[in-house]
């Protein structure tokens, strides 16, 4: 029933030309196998993607193959390599779950198909007005080259049974860590989450008047990060393993939190703690914490490489990810718990009701709990932060 209804709704609301074009895409996509390269470190995300794949198969005869990446860079490298080898079509990657620096890299090298987002029927539920979170990925203009699918917010997780709540601002973290020696750490800044931890601190600690949306140069970087390194030098000796080694990524840190080796975790998914508790992967005393001034937020996107073999299938998948029913299922803590990217104001009554009816649990913050969204700095900052940190602290 549901697919039929939504198809009907689609047909009614779209302009005839668009509907016709989309029908062409659907026809082309039929029978295709879409290789979706997406980070595979989270089982619930993997399961959710698999469930989307089941729907895709039933509704559109498109087969979804989730290529589970340890690092998104793997897929980007693949596309770059294929392009370099002169493979301008028939590539091995059809759709990528991207983040800022990788998006920038692919966009700059003209490796993306599109713009295509406006062609997706479900894009009408998105706020695509200038300046909305959906139009910039780490300050890089999206320009229709990638389609949003979930909302990410940087949050801390901590075990309330073992440690007091983290301080309200990043500056207070030095004293807090000193009071809990060896119990606090952050992922290696070579990793996205480790860099985000540094960026969160940078936003709070940078001298007034620093504009992080501009690409940094040597001087602006040095000036902006001087207080950050001072803070970090004070913090580091109190960290886990004396600040000499770090968990490779946030998943390992979550495992350490579960094992009781550390008391702090971090995530880009405010629902991950609640989900992990339900799944037996964290003690049920774990809670989510956000600095009072708010935390970095961004939208997760999917993009189609220019040399993808199954562009039509990839579009159908990107559209399916934006289906209100799929998005509500995604935001349901029993499934994934990731916040939806759809604009509540643009949803119809049924979809609004579906979102309102979603269950809640103690470890799941509400949108209000999360406070204001801090914009991502220009990707140049992340690259330089990683380099500078490695130069300063790698033996």
């Amino acid at each position, binding site marked *: 029933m549901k697919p039929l209804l939504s198809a009907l709704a689609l047909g009614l609301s779209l302009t005839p030309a668009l509907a016709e074009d989309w029908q062409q895409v659907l026809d082309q996509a039929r029978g295709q196998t879409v*290789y979706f390269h997406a980070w595979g470190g989270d089982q619930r995300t993997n399961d959710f993607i698999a469930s989307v794949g089941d729907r895709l198969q039933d509704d559109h005869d498109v087969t979804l193959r989730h290529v589970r990446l340890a690092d998104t860079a793997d897929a980007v490298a693949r596309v770059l390599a294929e392009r370099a080898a002169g493979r301008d079509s028939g590539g091995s990657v059809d759709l990528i779950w991207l983040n800022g620096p990788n998006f920038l890299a692919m966009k700059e090298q003209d490796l993306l198909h599109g713009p295509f987002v406006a062609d997706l029927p479900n894009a009408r539920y998105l706020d695509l007005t200038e300046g909305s979170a959906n139009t910039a990925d780490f300050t890089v203009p999206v320009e229709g080259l990638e389609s949003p699918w979930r909302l990410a917010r940087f949050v801390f997780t901590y075990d309330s049974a073992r440690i007091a709540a983290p301080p309200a601002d990043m500056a207070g973290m030095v004293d807090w860590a000193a009071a809990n020696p060896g119990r606090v750490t952050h992922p290696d800044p070579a990793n996205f989450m480790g860099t985000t931890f540094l960026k969160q601190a940078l936003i709070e600690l940078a001298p007034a008047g620093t504009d992080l949306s501009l690409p940094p140069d040597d001087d602006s970087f040095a000036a902006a990060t001087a207080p950050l390194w001072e803070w970090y030098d004070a913090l580091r000796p109190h960290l886990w393993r004396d600040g000499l080694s770090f968990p490779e990524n946030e998943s390992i840190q979550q495992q350490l939190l579960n094992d*009781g080796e550390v008391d702090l975790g971090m995530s880009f998914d405010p629902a991950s703690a609640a989900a992990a508790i339900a799944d037996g992967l964290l003690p049920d005393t774990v809670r989510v914490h956000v600095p009072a001034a708010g935390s970095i937020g961004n939208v997760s996107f999917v993009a189609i490489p220019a040399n993808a073999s199954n562009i039509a299938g990839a579009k159908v998948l990107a559209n399916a990810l934006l289906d209100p029913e799929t998005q509500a299922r995604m935001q349901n803590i029993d499934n994934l718990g990731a916040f939806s990217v759809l604009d509540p104001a643009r949803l119809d009554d049924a979809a609004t009701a579906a979102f309102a009816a979603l269950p809640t649990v103690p470890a799941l913050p509400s949108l209000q709990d999360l406070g204001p969204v801090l914009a991502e700095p220009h990707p140049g900052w992340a690259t330089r932060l990683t380099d500078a940190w490695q130069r300063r602290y790698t033996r």
Partner: protein
Amino acid sequence: MAAPLHKVRSLRGLGGTLVALLILLPVLFGLGHSVMAGFGHLPVLGVKGPSLSPWQTLLAQPGLWRSVILSLWTGMAATVLSLILAFGAIAALQGHAPRLRRVLAPLLAVPHAALAIGLAFVIAPSGWIARLLAPALDWSRPPDVATLGDPWGLALILGLILKETPFLIAILLAASSQIPLRAQMAAARALGYGRAAVWLWLLVPQLVRLIRLPVLVVLAFSVSVVDMALILGPSNPPTLSVTVSRLFTDPDLHAMLPASAGALMQLGLTALAAAILWAAMRLAGWCGRAILRRGARWQGLDRALAAPVAMLALLLVLAGLAAVTLAVWSIAFSWRWPDLWPDRLSLATWQRQSAWLPAAQTALWIALAATAIAMLLAVLWLEGSDRADRPGLQGWMRAAVALPLVLPQLSILIGLSGLLLRADLSPMAAVIWGHVLFVFPYLVIALAGAWAALDPQLTRTAASLGVGPWGRLWRVKLPVLIAPLSLAAALGFAVSIAQYLPTLFLGGGRVATLTTEAVALSSGSDRRVAAVHATLQAGLPWLIYLAALILPAFLHRDRRALKGEPG
């Protein structure tokens, strides 16, 4: 000469050509590609060399020199300690060879990654050992001690020793049957030498010469291992191999250049390690002979033989715990500090088949295909050598076969992946071929002995009864050799299941096997699903190994002369 001889040559030629085309050329071309790219010549990227900039980029990697030292140190320490332990163990347990072989066999079949994942939980600060000690030491929280990923790579060394010692013991057991061990032992003891001294002065020097190739294989593997180093090794900085493989997967394609330089550096590092080991062995031999000339009987040294036995027992306990850990985690729901046992068990992870079944099926098919192809090639080759009356491994072929094993995988594969970019090979086919590259040498080495040991009068008799060469192969050799063939196939299967880099690099991330999934999941937050993959990864080769033991025994249940084959 006459027509039949011509035919004979052609089979020999076919085997040699296949090996050259499928194994030797790719390896050399891969290395060649690395040399070009490593010196800044990569036309597909529009980069023309020669230049030293790839090396400059490589050397500018944070902590690179520490990575280099770390790789050299962990690889050499693991190899030397495994070698000492293996010699000590067979010196002390020489009379118990069959039992020793049986105890070690399951360990030999367990892939490195699975062992590393299990070991990681056993020795982690919140792991089983720490939980056992916690009540006595009053630890309310896991100690903040780096027992895993420690800056010195000790956990990595331990993991490597755990895997390499049984391998070297198996090799030594086979080698020691080639020398008149009992007679020499009796003769020397009659002269008043202790058992340990006989080993040191007489047997070790003879055996070392026989096991040079396996030791080189172990050394090359240990110096360049990636999967175990990811799981057990330090991270800040990691070993050179991990740094290089990260460069290879960097989003910036130009990182291929420093990665290629890294592949060369890894090659050089392996050569350096081999040279150091060779020099150390020469020195040890020289010192040994100097002491020997003084007539040292060293009867008291026999008591020291207890040490390697105790160490081996400890290793076996650790390996056993690691295996049990995998099984238990795979059925745990939650299992937290300081519980010795999960507080809740659940089959949920196993029941969620979509999480592991595809990887298991892919791994199974790749392993079966790669083993079948490699077996066909190996039999063709050995048979070809027989017909040319040049049995066994000789000349350039011997070197060609060993090449994929004594060169670091990383060095070969980085170049190969670069080459494959231009070829329109499906990822699955590329991965299977990559596995054949590393399975084939093991099969040939495993089969060459049994093949050569086959009584030539069997085939002569068959020929005198009018049975042609293919009939002799099909009706006499293969049935008689079914036990070693089965064991070799099981070995090939286990080798294929364990492959990490060939799957990752040649499959371009599109081919997910139990090993790549287990390694990826080991840096995830769900130890249970990693444990399911690792359990399967360890269990499948083990089942195949068991089948390889049972099948020939069943087929030949009434054939006395075929019992007691090596097993």
